[in-house]
């Protein structure tokens, strides 16, 4: 069993090295061959992981002993790790297969597949690790692989920027991880996760320390899972190739944060404050991201924000104390989001764009892709019997039992998810007024096959998990919540889907945004910019008031006309509802995006800028003038003299 475990771990790394060497020896290798090597490795380790089912293989080795602390590295198969490994293996294999087709015409395919294999190997190590040290190492390796893969098209500046941003922002969270495991090492004297958890359960840690550690660990999860305030890197990471987005930025790497919390959940359970932090972070992230997703026009960006939102839901579930639900949602989300990404790649390949405003009516040209997309969208919207339904239902029941108001918020989330995915999918697949109707064709067989498998997963994985999952995972099940809530959730999801669809069919993917969201955005901006600009406004008072009055009158007129227009269509009640809902959603979305951009994005940028400015300021100290340098020495002498007076007694 141990041999199998090591095979599983080493296969992707071997493939990666082999590809690098191969590339050096024979630079002209065909992309397919390279892809199949990578695929083969993925298949080998999928097989190995499946072979490991039910075993409890583990291997450990002492890296070194520093002082009194033994630092070990090791891997182990437990229910949770096997479950996560299976997920990683499955999605990786399918994405690898898909990539064989997708990357056929790209340059640098060898590099791509080598990096892809490296990534899968690292991710697998991450999930199987039984040592915080190894987990941390794999965590960093995953970051490096992500950096390389996002920057794959390095000739594009946004890819470069995205790669840089992703690496550095996630690393910000890693700092928390590093400190957390060092603290754990100090407290428990071990880095073996099993021992650490045992010690934690034995009550080895007192509370403030425990909460601190939990929060530090959560900081790492925030970075990797793109929770607020470290969200901005994930949409930027969409500059990478689509298979990369599918694999890394939806299914595996971003789930690592959630996985980390799951893995160390016993620790979190003992830190209620940390759980609250999780809850709130998850909730706010999920909401804001869902709102932002509703106004995106790039399909991949819709999916990216949707990913953030769904990850927020998982974190929220964790915060509710429902790890099982989070784990289910992790798996379900991996399948349907990967499917969505793969279809996005197919659309991109086929139609040459991912811009919703340039698409439309693709269902006729690519029926298979369209059906996969629809399945995944239904799963995302929580329509039974697809995957999302099962997990969201679990989260909902946990929420209803613990904190009913969270359940209300969850309903809103489900509605929003339905809305944005309905909007996006409709805009792609169905004809809408003024749609350009590009021509497109179905992708290659390899790409279709893997998408199909994933779509099937998205269709059934939820049910399968709901039946057998609990036996696998070390978390207790919640009692199912009241039926009314569950029905309500499904209905709201469906309503969202329909609303989104209607909206697009009426106005296309952009119209309501112009009508409602922009003025709102301006208003919010006014608020943000605040008093300083108000002074300016007063200064230009007369002219401005005039214009304001003028604008007010015009808005009044427009409103009147709109009302008239709306009443003329009063017979279509549903339509009115749709518009109203859409308007509300859009308004929220505009606000949320603004918040995201101005507060968190800008906040991050501000932080970086101020760091840079600090560097620049300090740099001025290095004047190049020798006499100032020596002056510094003597100033220190004076300071030392003053300092020494502290000891005067």
């Amino acid at each position, binding site marked *: 069993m141990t041999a199998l475990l090591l095979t599983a771990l080493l296969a992707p790394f071997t493939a990666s090295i082999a590809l690098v060497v191969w590339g050096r020896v024979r630079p002209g290798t065909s992309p397919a061959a390279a892809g199949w090597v990578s695929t083969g490795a993925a298949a080998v380790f999928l097989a190995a992981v499946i072979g490991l089912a039910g075993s409890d293989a583990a291997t450990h080795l002492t890296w070194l002993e520093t002082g009194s602390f033994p630092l070990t590295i090791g891997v182990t198969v437990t229910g949770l790790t096997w479950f996560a490994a299976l997920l990683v293996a499955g999605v990786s294999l399918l994405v690898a297969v898909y990539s064989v087709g997708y990357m056929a015409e790209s340059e640098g395919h060898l590099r791509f597949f080598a990096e892809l294999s490296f990534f899968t190997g690292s991710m697998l190590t991450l999930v199987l690790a039984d040592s915080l040290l190894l987990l941390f190492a794999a965590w960093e390796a995953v970051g490096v692989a992500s950096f390389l893969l996002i920057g794959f098209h390095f000739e594009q500046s946004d890819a470069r920027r995205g790669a840089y941003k992703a690496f550095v922002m996630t690393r910000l969270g890693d700092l928390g991880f590093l400190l957390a495991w060092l603290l754990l090492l100090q407290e428990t004297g071990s880095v073996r996760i099993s021992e650490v958890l045992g010690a934690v359960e034995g009550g080895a840690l007192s509370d403030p320390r425990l909460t601190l550690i939990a929060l530090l660990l959560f900081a790492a999860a925030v970075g990797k899972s793109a929770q607020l305030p470290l969200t901005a890197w994930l949409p930027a990471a969409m500059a990478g190739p689509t298979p990369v987005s599918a694999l890394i930025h939806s299914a595996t790497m971003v789930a690592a944060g959630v996985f980390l919390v799951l893995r160390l959940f016993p620790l979190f359970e003992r830190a209620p404050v940390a759980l609250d932090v999780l809850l709130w972070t998850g909730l706010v992230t999920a909401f804001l991201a869902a709102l932002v997703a509703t106004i995106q026009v790039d399909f991949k960006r819709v999916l990216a924000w949707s990913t953030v939102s769904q990850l927020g839901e998982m974190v929220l579930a964790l915060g509710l104390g429902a790890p099982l639900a989070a784990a289910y949602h992790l798996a379900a989300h991996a399948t349907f989001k990967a499917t969505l990404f793969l279809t996005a790649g197919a659309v991109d390949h086929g139609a040459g764009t991912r811009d919703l405003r340039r698409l439309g009516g693709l269902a006729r040209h690519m029926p298979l892709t369209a059906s996969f997309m629809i399945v995944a969208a239904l799963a995302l919207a929580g329509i039974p019997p697809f995957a999302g339904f099962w997990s969201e239902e679990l989260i909902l029941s946990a929420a209803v039992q613990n904190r009913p108001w969270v359940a209300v918020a969850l309903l809103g989330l489900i509605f929003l998810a339905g809305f944005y995915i309905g909007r996006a999918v409709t805009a792609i697949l169905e004809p809408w007024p003024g749609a350009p109707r590009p021509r497109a064709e179905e992708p290659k067989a390899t790409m279709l096959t893997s998408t199909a498998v994933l779509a099937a997963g998205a269709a059934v994985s939820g049910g399968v998990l709901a039946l057998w999952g609990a036996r696998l995972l070390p978390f207790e099940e919640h009692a199912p919540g009241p039926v009314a809530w569950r029905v309500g959730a499904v209905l709201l999801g469906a309503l969202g889907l329909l609303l989104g669809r209607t909206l697009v069919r009426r106005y296309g993917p952009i119209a309501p945004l112009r009508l409602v969201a922009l003025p709102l955005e301006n208003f919010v901006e006014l608020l943000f910019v605040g008093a300083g600009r108000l002074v300016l406004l007063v200064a230009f008072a007369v002219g401005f008031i005039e214009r304001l009055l003028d604008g007010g009158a015009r808005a009044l007129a427009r409103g009147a006309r709109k009302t008239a227009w709306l009443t003329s269509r009063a017979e279509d009640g549903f339509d009115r509802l749709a518009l109203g809902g859409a308007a509300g959603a859009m308004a929220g979305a505009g606000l949320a995006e603004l918040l995201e951009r101005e507060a968190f994005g800008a906040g991050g940028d501000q932080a970086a800028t101020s760091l840079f400015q600090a560097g620049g300021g300090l740099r001025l100290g290095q004047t190049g003038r020798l*006499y100032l340098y020596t*002056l510094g020495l003597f100033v220190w002498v*004076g300071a030392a*003299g003053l300092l020494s007076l502290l000891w005067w007694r």
Partner: protein
Amino acid sequence: MSFAEVAEWFAFAILAVISVAGALGMATTMSMFRSGIFLMASFIGVAGLFVLLSADLLGLLQVMMYIGGMLVMILFMVLFSHDPGGSMMAEMDMSLIERFFSLGLSSPPDEGMEHGDGMDMGGSGGHEGMEHEGMEHGDGMDMGGSGGHEGMDMGGMDMSMTTPVKRWAAALSLVLGGGLVALLLLRPAWPTTDATPSPESARMIGELLMSKYMMAFESAGLLILIGIFGAVLVARPGAYPDRDARDAYVTADLPPAPIEEGRPPSADAPVPPEALEEVTVNEAHRDKAGGPPSLNGPAGHAASQSAEGDN
């Protein structure tokens, strides 16, 4: 107080004054040569204090090391300085202390010339760069603050003594020195004894050097070796890989070019005070020899050459 004690205090006072005043003179005088001599005086004063403290061997060692060393060092300073005698600064606005230590600097001989400000060390007159704002400062310790230096156009001449942060420097060093003195006076924390050293200091030191401090002794030897080798390695003429450096080197060794009419030497050549006469000499001999006198100080040669190269 016995006679011996009075004598000791007297000797101490004289030697202390010599050391401190020497150092102060070194730091403030306008003449580089005098700086060197003042420093030497300071060293000799400290050596005297050593002898007073019955470390006679060390005192002598100090004197020997520094007379030779300082003479050579002054030689170098004269080489690098464009006004080693400091005469062109002699009548500048100076603080009291600078004026004190610069008393009696040889003043330029041609006071009746058109400038009449005693600043025109070139002696051939008409150098506009001399009238710069830095000179007009009223009571400043330095000649023009930090801005004044940049504003000066001395025709490539180094104003070796201009010191933009002088006032701050003086304040800082006063604070440091004063603070140290205050601490020393207020908190003497030294466990003094009445023991006396053995009279055979040379033997004692020799024995220590050969046993306990053998390593220090040998290492000091190595350090000196490094110093010699390093100085030779750095300063030896050698193959210059790039043209500029080679030119500079070659230039430094060329005989000086004749000083042409109409171009004031102060524009390109530093003029040590002894060269004040040189110009007259030079002019007197030009027809006869066509060449200048060969002694102008190596610095003068180099600078005039490079300045010409630049023009």
